[in-house]
Structures are given as C-alpha cells and as structure tokens.
C-alpha cells in the first residue's frame, strides 16, 4: 500500500466525518431530496454515511493485507522469514 493510497483513504475518512457530524453536517440535513418515502437526510444518516465509512475501512484492509503478503514473501525470499 503506497503512502499516497493511505493518505487518500485518510482524507476520504475525514471528509465523511466532516459531512456526517462535523461542521458541514447541517448542510446535508437541509437537502430537499427523497428516495421514495425516505428523505435524503434520513438515508444519508442511517445508510449512506455509515456504509461509505465501512467501505473505506474495507479497501484499506484489503490494501494493507496485500502489502503484508508482499513483505512476508520478500522476507522469505531473502531468508529472513
């Protein structure tokens, strides 16, 4: 996992946090859209926001484990592991 990828995911996490319960959260509470019977704000607060954060964590886990496998392989090939 490159430093840029890690930084990118950290920034996405920060943006979600700021939109979800940080200074920009009231702005989303005033969006006048709906999904069927469900208002945009309710959908964002209950489903979209939390799931976005979970997806960021999932991508991060995938990349870090991939990197760990590479490190383990390198250590084994040099006799270190």
């Amino acid at each position: 996992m490159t430093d840029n990828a890690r930084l990118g995911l950290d920034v996405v996490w920060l943006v979600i946090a700021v939109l979800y319960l940080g200074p920009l959260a009231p702005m989303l509470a005033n969006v006048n859209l709906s999904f069927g019977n469900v208002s945009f704000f309710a959908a964002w607060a209950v489903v979209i926001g939390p799931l976005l954060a979970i997806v960021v964590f999932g991508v991060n886990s995938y990349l870090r484990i991939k990197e760990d496998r590479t490190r383990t392989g390198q250590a084994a090939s040099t006799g270190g592991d």
Partner: protein
Amino acid sequence: MAFDPVLSSGIILAYLVVTLGIGIAGWRISPSKNMEDYLLADRAVHWFVGFFSTIASQFSALTLMGFVAFYFKFGISTFIAITGAYILFTSGTYYFIGPKVWKIGRKFGHITPSDTVREYYDSPLFGYIVAVGMILALIAYLEVQLMGVGILLKLGSGGVIPVTAGAAAITVVIAIYTWLGGMKSVAWVDTVQGVMLLGGAVIGGFVLLFTIGGGFGPAFSQIASQKPALLQVPGPAGVWNWVFIATFAIPVFLGWVYHPHMWMRLHYFKSGRAVENLPWVSGGIFWLTQIGGLAVVLTGALIIPDAPPDQFILLMFRNYFPTVAFALVASAALAAIMSSASSQCHGIGAVAARDVTEQIWPEWEESKHLMVARVTMLIGLLGAFFLSTLGIPFLVTSGAAAAAISTALIFPQVIAAVYGWEWPTREGAVAAGALGLITSLVFLLGWVSSPFGVWPGFWGLVVNVVAFVVVSSVTNSHPEKSTINEWQEAMQDSTVALDREHRENVVVSSDD
C-alpha cells in the same frame, strides 16, 4: 400475543446453564498456564472467535436496550451520535492504530493501555494513574451491565425470577467461568453470545418491521407524518443539536477502544491480518445490529409511544413475538450483557495484576500475580453488583461517562506514542492525563455545569490535549530515540514474521 412467563423464564435459565457449560469447557480443554494465557489466551485467538469476542464485549446492555432507548426517545440525532460515531471513531480507531498496536504488543509483550504509555514515556507514575482511572471507569461501566440484567429479568420472566436473585445468579455464573478460564472461557462464551445477539437484533428487528410496520418505506412515512421530529436534528426534546452530537460522539466513541478489556482484544489475535480486518468487520456488525434496533423503533414508536425508553425494545418483542422467540431474543440481550460484564471484570483483574502488582513487586512468582488478577476480577464484579442494586435512572449514563474518562485520560498520549512523535514529554503526558481525568470527573459528576451547550464529558479531552501540548513545550523529558526507533521498526515488520518471532521467544523462555 399471549406471554407465558414460566416458559420464558425456563428458556432464560436454560441459556444460563449452557453459558456456564461453554465457559467451563473453555477452561477444561486448555487450562491457563500463566498470566499471558489467562489475560490474552496466549495471543493465539482464532480470527472468528476474536471478531465475535471483540464485538460481543462491546455490545452490552447499551446495545439493545440503552441505544435503542435513545433512538426511541430522541430519534435520528442519536443514531448519528451513536451508530455513525461508533463507525467513524471506534472502528476508525481500529483503522488508524489497531494494526500498529498489535505489532508493538507482539514485539514488546504489551497487554494493557498502561503498558503502552508507561514504556513510551518511561513513566511508572503515568502507568499507575492510567490504571486507577481505567479501574474507576470500568466499575461504572460494569455496574450499567448489571442494571440491565434487572430490567431484562423483570420483563423476560414476567416476575417469575426475582430480579435481585436472578442478577445474583448471573453474577455467579460470570464469576465462575471468568475465574476458571480467563480470556479463553470469556472468548468462547462471547463468540456464542455475539452470534446470538447479532441474530436476535437483526432478525427480530426486521421481522417486526416487515410484519407489523409494513416495511421501511411505509414505516418512515408514518413517522414522518405523525412524529416528524424523530427524523430531524435536534430531535423531539430539542437537546441533540449538532454541537451536542459532536461533543458527545467524539469523546465517547474515541474512548471505547481504550478500555482495558477492549485494548487487550487488540493483542489477543493470533493473526495480525485479523486486526487489519477489524475496522470494517466491527463497523459492519455494529451497523447491522443498530439497524435492527432502529427497525423496532420505526415499527413501535407510534404503537407504544409512552413505553419507558430502556424497556421499549423488549416490550415490543414481548408484545408481538411468541414466547419462545421472545425468550430467545431476551437471552440474546442477556448474552450482550454477560459478555460485556465478563470482559470488563476480566479487564479490571488484568489492570490490577499487570499494571499494579507486577510493577510494584516484580519479584513475585507469576502464580501470585495470577491470583491478584482473579481476586480483583471478583471484587470488581461483586462491587458493581452491589452498586447496581442502588439504581441509576438511565442506562447509557455511566457507559458513556466511562468511555469519555478513558479518552480524557489517555487519547493524545497513545496517538503520539503509536505514531512515534518526539515532541511530547513525560511531564506533559502525566500532567495532561491527570488533568483530563480530574476535569472529566468534575463535569460528569455535575460539580461544574458545561457551557456552550457542550456535552460535559467533552471537556476532559480538551483539557488533556491543551495541557499535553503546553506542558510538553516547556519541559524536556522526551521519549528515548531508541524506543521510538524500535517501535517504528516493529511496525514495518510483516505480521507473520512478528508472530513467528514472538512464538520463538516464548519457546526459548520456557526452555530457560
């Protein structure tokens, strides 16, 4: 539906017997050999057991009854402040520092949060302050669990099982399996309980939503037309505005992982890759259980609007499920309470032995420290039981306070240590931790009222951060360069290499 209290009581009692059996089996199959085994199951916990034990330890009386009570009373504002904040900050803590903490622990033998800060800042004093603060926080939190038992038995048995006697029996069951098997028994029992809780909350919630509430869309529409404030910020009571939400969410959900029983679960995984997966697994499962709880609120907020909030979910299940299904859900709620309580009293024992007696009397034989861990675990559990008989009005109060105290005590110090920051000093860490703890207690106990509409538990974190920066800038005892380098090097190792090195060291020391 007609509720049969005798049948329900029988199922709950049978569940208790099964729980005790699993706990004893965990001990019989592999009795604890030493401290590390008793406290961390020899750092060899399988990923599946590890995930569910971690999650079940966090899911407590609050998860089904306390948090749902908040959604029922205050609406979507509290879903943001609890579920969203858990995912962003608690799972977020696993995301930012979880794998680093696992690697440092594997390399240097850490178990508790005190281990981390004591070693980085080379300060036994800070280790003791953190130990005392954590024990205080955990006893308050443990007491909440046992209060939840009272509510659950009252509704679950319809009065057949007397509340005090039932709570005493549950305390005894927890004490037996935690005393005997330590982390192994606790983790085994947690796994079964975690699966039950997840199933009970999600299946129970959705069955109610679709059979009684007509599904998500219709239920939302009804709430939007008849109780619109539940779907808006600041909610019906007008309390949960954005300032209050943020100042509640940040200290409470940043602090959850720093409780000793949760911190120890970062160290007990055999595979570091399981810790890498913990952020999305913990966030995903928490979200699912809370969606189940919210489904019950959407269904029942208009049906029983005057229900006592912390009894609401159980009343809904009892009113609409057959007795057997209700009793299984009630057992799942009991599972949530027992898994947290056993983990918390085990955490108290771990802190007492690891952070107090091992530091003061390192020459003692290990069996003596092990006895300290067991006896303190028992004292903490019994103390919390007696405190719970005194009663507190609202279930979430002590749990949130306990988490906020942890944050105020240790949060910036741990982040600085794990990221290898050189600027903090020992004096800064100790002064900030102590001031953060005192400030938290002063505001949370109501001795000083919180200004600006801020949740009282937020001020401890603010004071800690400010004091940490200011005191560090005028003092000079920075962490040793060698410690910083060794920790950062450990974080660069592969998880497989670190685990192998740890196992080789364990074999060498047993040969000695």
